[in-house]
């Protein structure tokens, strides 16, 4: 009798949870529509959309290498497997041509596709929830005036249970919308919303949600480290609004270095953004966490004194690292405080040499840094074929202590060993 009641209770509870989960994860399909007729979209609205799409870096994730713009197919690496970006051109069968503005708005705000299935939060809809109706309409207008391209989405390759899309409903319950209220100033609205800076620069928890309590503390992305921003930035000289705006629009910052890794594509897209918007982002990001603390301020003062020649640079060690630097690096990077060309940032100022991990510096040494296709400019060759693992360790140790004047990295040998295994040198 008692057992029977227990069984009944379990049954009811189980049934109720299943019903609740179904209610949570089920979303109606939005009826397919015909794409907006040519000429029905106001050009001014589409132009505004172009500005937002550049700020959102949409092209980077939605354009495969060598592929057609916005046709998707980019493999996105996650800790749970690969997923592939989708076609956001107005192709009716394989893109978003059959999506109404209402369906597009729902996807942007809540991560529900037109047919009702859940999109993975690799698509940063928790950020886009901050966008206004008008902004979403402008992005829609821009995308709907692109050339339709037929490119079917590729199947994802995710491990169980992450391959069950309906489970995203639970994730949304926990993490959507973002717990931080959208800031009211223009720069914050852009940075937290369409530009989704935190998607890379904020660390994520075990199931991929941004840890808002550690906003902009820096995070690992695609084998690179997206550095901490604002007051926590490891850069020897704190970022200013002016220099950050310059960096965002051109990928080069005279006192910090050059955009590399995933940030290189971001700055390439931001080159098409409105300079006023970039200044607004720069003011917001440079101000995160308030002014730099006295220790960083003192370091910046010291660094500037060395640059201007009124203080001596850090003492140099000899040995194999110094010899490799002299024979492989110094022809362009000179003594680390001067450079061959004015287009180069002195190595001593490079953020990568002052970060807690040698990862970014090592990746640049292994792969080099190359202009993007159709971009002009000097390249740094990769040294993966030139240097042995021990030589990498030696030269990095020299760069860190003798050029940047920072305490030695303790995890150098392990980082070099693990990254050389990951790399496929040419």
């Amino acid at each position: 009798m008692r057992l029977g009641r227990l069984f009944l209770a379990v049954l009811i509870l189980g049934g109720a949870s299943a019903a609740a989960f179904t209610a949570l994860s089920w979303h109606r399909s939005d009826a397919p529509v015909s794409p907006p007729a040519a000429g029905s979209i106001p050009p001014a609205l589409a132009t505004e959309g172009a500005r937002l799409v550049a700020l959102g870096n949409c092209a980077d994730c939605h354009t495969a290498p060598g592929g057609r713009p916005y046709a998707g197919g980019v493999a996105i690496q996650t800790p749970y497997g690969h997923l592939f970006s989708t076609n956001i051109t107005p192709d009716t069968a394989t893109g978003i041509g059959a999506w109404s503005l209402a369906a597009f708005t729902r996807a942007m705000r809540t991560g529900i596709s037109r047919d009702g299935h859940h999109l993975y939060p690799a698509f940063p809809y928790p950020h886009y929830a901050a966008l206004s109706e008008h902004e979403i309409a402008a992005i829609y207008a821009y995308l709907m005036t692109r050339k339709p391209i037929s490119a079917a989405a590729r199947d994802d390759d995710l491990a169980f249970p992450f391959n069950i899309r309906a489970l995203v409903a639970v994730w949304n319950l926990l993490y959507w919308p973002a717990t931080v209220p959208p800031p009211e100033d223009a720069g914050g609205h852009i940075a937290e919303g369409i530009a989704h800076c935190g998607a890379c620069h904020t660390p994520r928890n075990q199931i991929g949600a941004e840890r808002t309590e550690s906003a902009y503390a820096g995070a690992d992305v695609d084998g690179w480290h997206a550095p901490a921003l604002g007051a926590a930035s490891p850069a020897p000289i704190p970022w200013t609004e002016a220099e950050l705006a310059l960096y965002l629009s051109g990928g080069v910052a005279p006192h910090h270095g050059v955009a590399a890794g995933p940030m290189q594509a971001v700055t390439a897209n931001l080159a098409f953004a409105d300079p006023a918007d970039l200044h607004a982002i720069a003011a917001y990001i440079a101000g995160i966490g308030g002014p730099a603390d006295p220790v960083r301020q003192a370091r910046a003062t010291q660094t500037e004194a060395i640059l201007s020649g009124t203080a001596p640079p850090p003492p140099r060690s000899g040995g194999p690292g110094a010899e490799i630097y002299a024979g492989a690096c110094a022809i362009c990077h000179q003594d680390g405080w001067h450079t061959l060309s004015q287009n180069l940032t002195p190595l001593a100022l490079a953020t990568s040499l002052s970060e807690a991990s040698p990862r970014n510096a090592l990746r640049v040494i292994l792969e080099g840094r190359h202009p993007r296709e159709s971009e002009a400019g000097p390249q740094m060759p990769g040294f993966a074929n030139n240097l042995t693992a021990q030589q990498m360790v030696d030269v990095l140790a020299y760069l860190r202590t003798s050029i940047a004047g920072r305490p030695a990295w303790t995890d150098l040998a392990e980082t070099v060993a693990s990254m050389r295994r990951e790399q496929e040198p040419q």
Partner: protein
Amino acid sequence: MIAIDINGRSRSVDATPETPLLYVLRDNLKLNGAKYGCGLGQCGACTVLLDGKPVFSCLTPVGSLAGRRVRTIESLGTEASPSPLQRAFIDEQAAQCGYCSAGMVMRAQALLETNPGASDTEIRARMQTNLCRCGTHMRILRAVRRAAAALGSASASPPQAGMRDGAVK
């Protein structure tokens, strides 16, 4: 004195450890195949093979070469008996001034040793590093394709005795 292994021979050179390999090849050893183009790792005219992989010899300090093997274009063939790749460059007349040729040949050599039947896409991706200011890129690509086609079909047969390091000779 620094001992380095060049084209299968141990050579002793009088140079400081940070001296670029290119200077040692040209000045000390009179191996003038590799050329000084930019000296900054931008053009590829100085490309040689280090343990079978292409490197810019202008950015390779000679002191970093202990226990490693360097191969230059002098190891491939002679005027009387060019290597298959050199033959293909001649047959396609893939040079105008010829200053980039040795670097081009060595980079292509590294590719074909690991991937004898390399596709056009693979060839273009790999050769991208090396520049030719005369604009003979199309002929250079044809030459590498010609050698790849020849070697790709030959690689179906078992390797000949006497081939070292997978060297294509």
